[in-house]
């Protein structure tokens, strides 16, 4: 019960922070860690819904963030047989490349400069 409440609060907080305060994709790290911990298909639904809401609230093209989150989660799932996912190095690399991929799409959308992409990927590693 307590774990569920903490999970919901963290989910809402990370989402609101990403929408209003920071350009760092907080929820990417959150969704990734959730997937690595539970490896449930429900996390895909969560990523889909969170991505759609994020795009609507930040006026990005609808579906872009959802697609990127789903791709990151799917790639993480592909590696679960070859690597131990519940390790710091995996979370570090997945957070870094996930953020970089999302930033890359935002460049196509003219939201960020290419210099920013690398810089914003670094703190994501720490968040992850």
């Amino acid at each position, binding site marked *: 019960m307590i774990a569920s409440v903490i999970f919901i609060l963290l989910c809402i907080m990370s989402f*609101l*922070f*990403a*929408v*209003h*305060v*920071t*350009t*760092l994709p907080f929820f990417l790290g959150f969704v990734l860690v959730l997937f690595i911990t539970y*490896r*449930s*298909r429900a996390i*895909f*639904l969560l*990523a*889909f819904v969170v*991505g*759609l*809401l994020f795009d*609507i*609230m*930040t*006026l990005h*093209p*609808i*579906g*872009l963030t*959802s*697609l990127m989150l*789903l*791709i990151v*989660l*799917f790639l993480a*799932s*592909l590696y*679960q*047989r070859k690597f131990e996912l519940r390790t710091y190095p995996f979370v570090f690399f997945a957070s870094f490349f996930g953020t970089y991929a999302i930033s890359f799409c935002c460049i196509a959308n*003219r*939201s960020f*400069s290419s210099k*920013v992409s690398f*810089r*914003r990927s670094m*703190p994501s590693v720490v968040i992850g």
Partner: protein
Amino acid sequence: MQKRSSLVPIFLSYAFICILFLFLSFGSRLSFLYGLSEILLHPLQASSYAVLTSYHGGESQDTLKKENTQLRLQLAKLNEMKKEDAALRDQYQTTTVPANKLVPAAILSARTFIPGVSIADTLVIDKGSSDQIKKGAAVVYKDMLLGLVTSVTPHASVVTLVTSNSSSLTAATTKTNAVGIVKGQGRGIMTYELVLLADSLESGDMVVTKGNTDDAGHGLPPGLVIGKLASVHKRASNLFQNAELQTVVDITKLTTVFVLQP
């Protein structure tokens, strides 16, 4: 643990829906969805932005700890109303910009790279095409140009600030009338470039918009303050001189801005 094979169809089905949404979104066929969701989400968005920015705005931590969530929300709303009231009074006393052409808009989000350290490059405001806001409209506060509307949905718009690295506009200095280009460098930095060596640039001189409006009045009016010259770089061997430009408005303190209509 889920098997990989069971995740593939789930991933593919969600990805298909996302691509469908993207396709429709780029074709501007989802404006009704933006409109509907904006009507539903704006109150939540405005409240959460007010709470997050009031906390971030530096109120003492001791006071914040004493307040419960409900009180904090009420206080943030009250502060927001006071700021809006003050902003409206200030704005309508400003003489350069005609008051009948201004549409007040609340800031819904101003995301930065590191909150409190870096400065936002874009804003989301709560006025859109249903309020006759059009792409390219100037967004001001008092006599100061904040940015231009770059994307519009039925009930919200994205404003790209003049400090953004995608921003570039013609300007002139007030004292010496030296014409140049103001280019945003991101992170709150601007440069004043392509000024002829023959022209004179002085530190502290204000830079204003040169103006670029069409017959219908769309575009950027002249005389809006962009910033103040901080330092001038002039070399006899160069074709042009340039300068660093300082913003005169702290975007983090604003909750209401004004969109200029033709």
